[in-house]
């Protein structure tokens, strides 16, 4: 196996010619990478994640996951090795109970019932949600749904986990729980998020995007402490760093008056 598990070279994407959503995206990710994918709304973070799992195929450039080039033909093999946690857990939990949901992927990959049982057990243990096993999705809280959604993809035993805004709509305790879980998973992770504090705690590397391009790619601390860089791209310092300068934080953006 090569050192680079995910290779993205010169990937561009657009729905129609006039407006390019992604422009010449290139990066690689190795086995010990946990990447925070950050950037303002609409810079193409989700699109990039969707391209990596082959949900958008009309891109130019090349993507390969674990030495398999992503094409229409290789999709089943690629998807077996990559788990995608959607922003809306409601869509990800479509079976009657959590158990059934976690078992969905193993069953589709043709495992027998003992192996399925084993996979489900393992996924439940990893996230420590055995108590949710027989619960119906609509009776669960947002936090529980998110954890269950993560379990559903862990049952596929993926090498790579992609997450779209995992901490959105979680209360502080569930968010903390999620951070701990993420830190315990030794998969390659790419996490698209506006929650920079979470990124700071869970990722060793950050890719900053703006207008469909990669603006910066480097160590988490380096990028997340660079106030000018962040603010130039529609972000702010992580909250936990905002107090570090000693004085209370003031945005360097000129103060604007809003007339109503």
């Amino acid at each position, binding site marked *: 196996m090569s050192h680079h598990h995910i290779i993205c070279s010169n990937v561009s994407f657009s729905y129609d010619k006039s407006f390019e959503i992604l422009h010449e995206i290139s990066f690689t990710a190795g086995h010990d990478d946990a990447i925070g994918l950050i950037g303002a709304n609409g810079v193409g973070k989700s699109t990039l994640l969707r391209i990596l*799992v082959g949900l958008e195929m009309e891109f130019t450039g090349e993507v390969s996951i674990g030495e398999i080039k992503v094409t229409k033909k290789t999709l089943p093999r690629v998807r077996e090795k990559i788990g995608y946690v959607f922003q809306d857990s409601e869509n990800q939990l479509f079976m009657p109970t959590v158990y059934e949901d976690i078992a969905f992927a193993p069953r589709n990959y043709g495992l027998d019932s003992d192996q399925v049982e084993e996979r489900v057990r393992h996924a439940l243990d990893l996230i420590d949600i055995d108590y949710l096993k027989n619960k119906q999705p*609509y009776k669960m809280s947002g936090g529980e749904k998110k954890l269950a959604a993560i379990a559903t993809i862990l049952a596929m035993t993926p090498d790579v986990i992609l997450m779209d805004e995992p901490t959105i709509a979680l209360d502080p305790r569930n968010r903390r729980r999620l951070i701990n879980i993420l830190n315990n998973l030794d998969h390659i992770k790419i996490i698209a998020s506006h929650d920079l504090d979470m990124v700071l705690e869970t990722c060793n590397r950050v890719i900053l995007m703006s207008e469909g391009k990669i603006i910066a790619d480097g160590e988490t601390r380096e990028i997340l402490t660079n106030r000018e860089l962040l603010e130039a791209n529609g972000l702010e310092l992580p909250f936990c760093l905002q107090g570090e300068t000693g004085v209370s934080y003031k945005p360097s953006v000129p103060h604007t008056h809003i007339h109503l």
Partner: protein
Amino acid sequence: MGKLSDAIYEVHYMDTIAGIDSPIHRVHPLVKLIVTVAYIWFTVSFNKYDVTGLITMVVYPVALFSLSGISFGHSIKKLRVILPFVILMGILNPFFNREPLFLLYGITITEGMVSGLTLLIKGILTVLGGYLLISTTRIEAICYALNLLRVPEILVTQILLTYRYITVLLSEANHIFEAYSLRAPSQKGIHYKVWGSLIGQLLFRSIDRATGLYDAMVLRGYNGNFRHSQLPKARWQDSAYLLVWMAAFAVLRYTSLTALIGSLFVR
């Protein structure tokens, strides 16, 4: 809207009581389905003038309510849905059939009165029969039972998915409606000018949700076949349950038990 939030509550409530544990809840779903259908079948097959025979069928709901621990109170709510029409039809019967049957303490009882009464009793018993199935069996379990009965897979999946997303869409519809009524406080329903766009928005959200759902499914290896777990095998208790009720229904239906009992007291 009360109606939407009521419906959400109702789905949750039914699911909760279907999830408790009791001897009836433990019976195999297929067996319960068959017994329920048989019960309703036998109940409606009683002749429209056979009040005394029909009344014996009350044994089944009484037995199931007490064995399952399901409260009778909530089932009255269910009767509310379909009973008005049945009552209306029942009340009309005495007017359209005035053929006298017998005298009771000086009052002429007509065929219409008797048939109206049986109609009402049938209405109550059949609704209770259905209620006792769904309050002791989860919808998923009923779907798996349908699967065993060779109902096409695509239809079973359809029921499961519709059921899964009913609460999601009911609450989305509720949000839309609440947002609407907060800004249009004096209206009872939706103004005709926004009929299309309001439901249309809900429709688009649903379609986007379906797309998201499909994405989530294909990413986990879905290719058109929906696999779910199978039901456990029936136990001997299940067969016994089936046999006992079938025998009981047959006895209640084809022997005049009330007349027999009555003859013990009346010479």
